[in-house]
């Protein structure tokens, strides 16, 4: 197994490579042995173009699986494909994203191929000629180092955002090998017939990607509705501080803070909230926080990544107008 190649299982959306795929390629390049080849597995409909662009991230060879069958991710079809491919080509190491797709595939493949798997890796350290995976456990409070036995296929899932993306220059020529594979109807028993987009208004606050939080500073329910209008335009979830909930502007399940929900969105826009400790404790884990407040001394700015000193009654309508224009 040691002699085999290093594979990365790529993901893409709207024909664009997703960031985790670029991370996988870059990390794969850093980890591969000199004699091995960095192979990308690219599956989908009309993805040939991106297959050629992979050289930018150090990929040397791409197994391209294309066709109508692969328009949507179906884990049974992917399992059929990958397990066949692994038997045929016998790689020694495979990297997945720690994403819904990677999390669905890696454990199954590990079992099926009798491989060894480490999930949620945030770093790799070289130890002799082997790689030690660093994974975060206990709610990201502790890092654990894990080594795998070398005589097995090694599988890792990588936490998105934890690895650096490197582009290589000069651009190397890349070998694209189309794999004509049709999943066996015996193996694939499920079929995806469509997707229902989650309604940001009804999805749980803890899972929301973008959250607009408002507080007592809005003054009344009519003003608060502006936030909802903006939320509809941005596909964001509207939430609030305890006073907003106590005033009846929002149901309790939309409350952020000590006595409400602890949130971790990618983007949080806070307006009309001064930033009392009880509120701030609920937004600590947010990725990026923008605060709007009239008072430059408001404590909310201490917790924000970006702040706008101004009246949200003036700023939000401008934002809404701009978004409406962009949409047109």
């Amino acid at each position, binding site marked *: 197994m040691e002699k085999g190649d290093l594979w990365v299982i790529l993901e893409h959306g709207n024909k664009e490579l997703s960031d985790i795929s670029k991370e996988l390629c870059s990390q794969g390049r850093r980890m591969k042995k000199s004699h091995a080849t960095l192979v990308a597995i690219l599956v989908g409909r009309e993805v040939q173009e991106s297959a050629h662009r992979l050289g930018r991230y150090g990929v040397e060879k791409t197994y391209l699986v294309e066709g109508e069958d692969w328009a949507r991710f179906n884990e049974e079809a992917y399992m059929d494909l990958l397990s066949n491919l692994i038997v045929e080509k016998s790689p020694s190491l495979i990297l997945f994203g720690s994403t819904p797709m990677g999390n669905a595939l890696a454990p199954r493949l590990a079992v099926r191929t009798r491989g060894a798997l480490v999930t949620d890796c945030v770093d790799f350290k070289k130890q002799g000629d082997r790689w030690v995976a660093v994974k975060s456990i*206990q*709610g990201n*409070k502790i890092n654990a180092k894990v080594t795998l036995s070398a005589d097995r296929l090694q599988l890792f899932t990588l936490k998105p955002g934890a690895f650096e993306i490197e582009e290589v220059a000069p651009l190397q020529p890349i070998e694209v090998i189309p794999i004509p594979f049709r999943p066996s109807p015996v193996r694939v028993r499920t079929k995806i017939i469509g997707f229902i987009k989650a309604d940001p208004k009804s999805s749980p606050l803890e899972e929301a990607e973008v959250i607009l939080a408002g507080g*007592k500073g809005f003054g009344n329910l009519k003003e608060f509705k502006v936030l909802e209008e903006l939320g509809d335009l941005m596909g964001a979830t509207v939430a609030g501080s305890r*006073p907003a909930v*106590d005033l009846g502007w929002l149901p*309790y399940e939309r*409350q952020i803070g*000590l*006595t*409400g929900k*602890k949130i971790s969105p990618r983007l949080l826009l806070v307006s009309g909230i*001064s930033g*009392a*400790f*009880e509120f*701030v*404790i609920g937004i600590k884990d947010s990725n990026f926080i923008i605060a709007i407040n009239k008072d430059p001394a408001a*404590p909310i700015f201490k917790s924000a990544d970006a702040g706008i000193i101004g009246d949200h009654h003036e700023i939000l309508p401008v934002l809404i107008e701009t978004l409406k224009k962009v949409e047109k």
Partner: protein
Amino acid sequence: MESREIFWNISQIGWLYALTFIAFLLLFYGCYDHVKFWGTGRKTGGGPPLRLRWKSFLSLALFQRGILKRAYPGIMHLFIFWGIIVLFIGTVLLAIEHDFLKPIFSYSFIRGNFYKVYSFFLDLFGLLAVIGTVMMLMRKYLFPEYRGVRGRPDTLAVWSLFFVLVTGFLVESARIRGTGAEEPFSPIGYVLSALLPRLFDAESLQLFHEVLWWIHLVLALILIAMIPYTKLFHIIAGSFLTLSDPKVKKGILSPVFSEPLRLEPDRLTRLSRLQLLSLAACTQCGRCEEVCPVVSDQSLLSPRRVMDGLRRELQRSNNHLGFLQNGAFLAGFWECLACRLCEEECPISLKVAEKIVDVRRHQVMALSQFPAELRSVFRNVETFGDPFGEGKYAREDWIQGEAVKRRLRNRNGCLVWIGCQSAFHERNKKVAWAFTKLLDVLSIDYFLLGKEEVCCGDLARRTGNEYLFRDSVLKNIDTFRRYGVQKIVTLCPHCFHVMKEEYPHWGGHYEVLHYTELMAEVIQQGKVPFSKSLDKKTVYHDSCYLGRYHDLYREPRSVLNHVLMDGLMEMEKNRGSSVCCGAGGGNFWTRGNTGERINATRLEEVCDKGAQIICTSCPYCLVMFEEAIRNQERQGLVAMDLAELLDLVKPSGTEK
């Protein structure tokens, strides 16, 4: 020689004995049921010394000190209580003489001067009992908001009592009239006998006497037989309770585990015998409900209903908490602030909050059912040692200067226990800072534990997570042992209470002071005179744990009066009747009660006084008032901790 013809014109005395026998049979049968139920409770060993028990019995049962806290119902109950006691003793004496001494030894003692005194006292106390009963009836029918007498059995009992007393006097008067005796020492009967219609001839008088006599007897026996089946049982249960559970130290919960760690399932699923007794002793008078800050139209909690509901549900399930099914009833248990105002108000000091915690314990440890907000709080305390989940390395972030940093773990002087609130909460960090500065100015030797501190456990204990509490206690006791701690000064009254009163069970015996005690001591010694220079209108809010739990009312006031130019203003509800800020009993961490916000209501009281500073000495209260001030947008009012206030004044002579 004066005496009384006991039966005068009553024949068929055999019926008297037969009916009495039946009544007492019913009484004993009912009591037997109670004892059987009481026997399902778990035993609690030990208990306070006998001297304290008798003291509590005398004060609460015989002298009715608890119920007399309120004038009208107090006097009403006192009259009925002593009236019935004296009449009962009188009847027993009569029975002893008539059925025992006379037939066997031909001896009688109720005659002559003794008879005069005897008869006079019986009449007097009978009259008091009538007045008390009339007061009770007036309350029931004229003041519908009074809800002590409710339901048919209660009404029947009061009316029976009334008629027993009235017929008693009428029977007496008829006898006096019929026998023609001159008995001015039975004043009521004597006066009534004169008032009896002149129309009565001897025969109708005898009939009148005979009918009333039997009515009097039957009603009295009905009352006796009713005792174990109605709330009249409080006469028996209440007496035993004051004897067995005097309020010596207040608000201390009993442990669930036996050591070394072992859980006896009984401790989780069953109430103790004392608690069952107190359920039986509750008369549903509703004083607790009146004062409870949580009770409102929308709230699910009422201490009165907790007692009533628990008694009924547990009787049905033979004292097994697992059979509590009513969701709304159970949700009410999570609204309790553990402020102990109900216990303080209860005429016989029934421990309501203790039972609420017992139910919470069962919910948390047996069923894992508790408010969702507590999930992360429990986990945070478990993993990081603080409810905020900031971790032990953030515990020293509040310290700003090198001077204080040097105090960390240097084992000099007493330990100043900062506590999670003051170590992590942005607002309370300022209090910790002010207090340590103050100590430096006063050159008091102290040291800090910093990252070695672990949550004191009060929050876990009051929310029923005894396992977590025990864990915190053992960790802290171990730390104290390693640092040789003997004296602890805490910033938070909650830490203060558990360390002082609840740690000793696990072998942690320390001299524990709340910092207000320390400050009062310093001022009293006069070593460091603070200047009386603060000219702000200030009210002091008594926190539950300092006040009702430990009666520390004087200390903070003496400190404040020392620095306030115009002296301290008092709120309407102060000291023992102070109202919780709304954060107690774990409610800081949950969404709390469903009704009006409690801190908002309390703040309105402050504003009515026109105060500029609301001073408190509890980090929870401080945050709650800050929040209320922010929400109500009160201008010119600030919430401050006592330590901050002192820091503002600065001891005179130390300013540089």
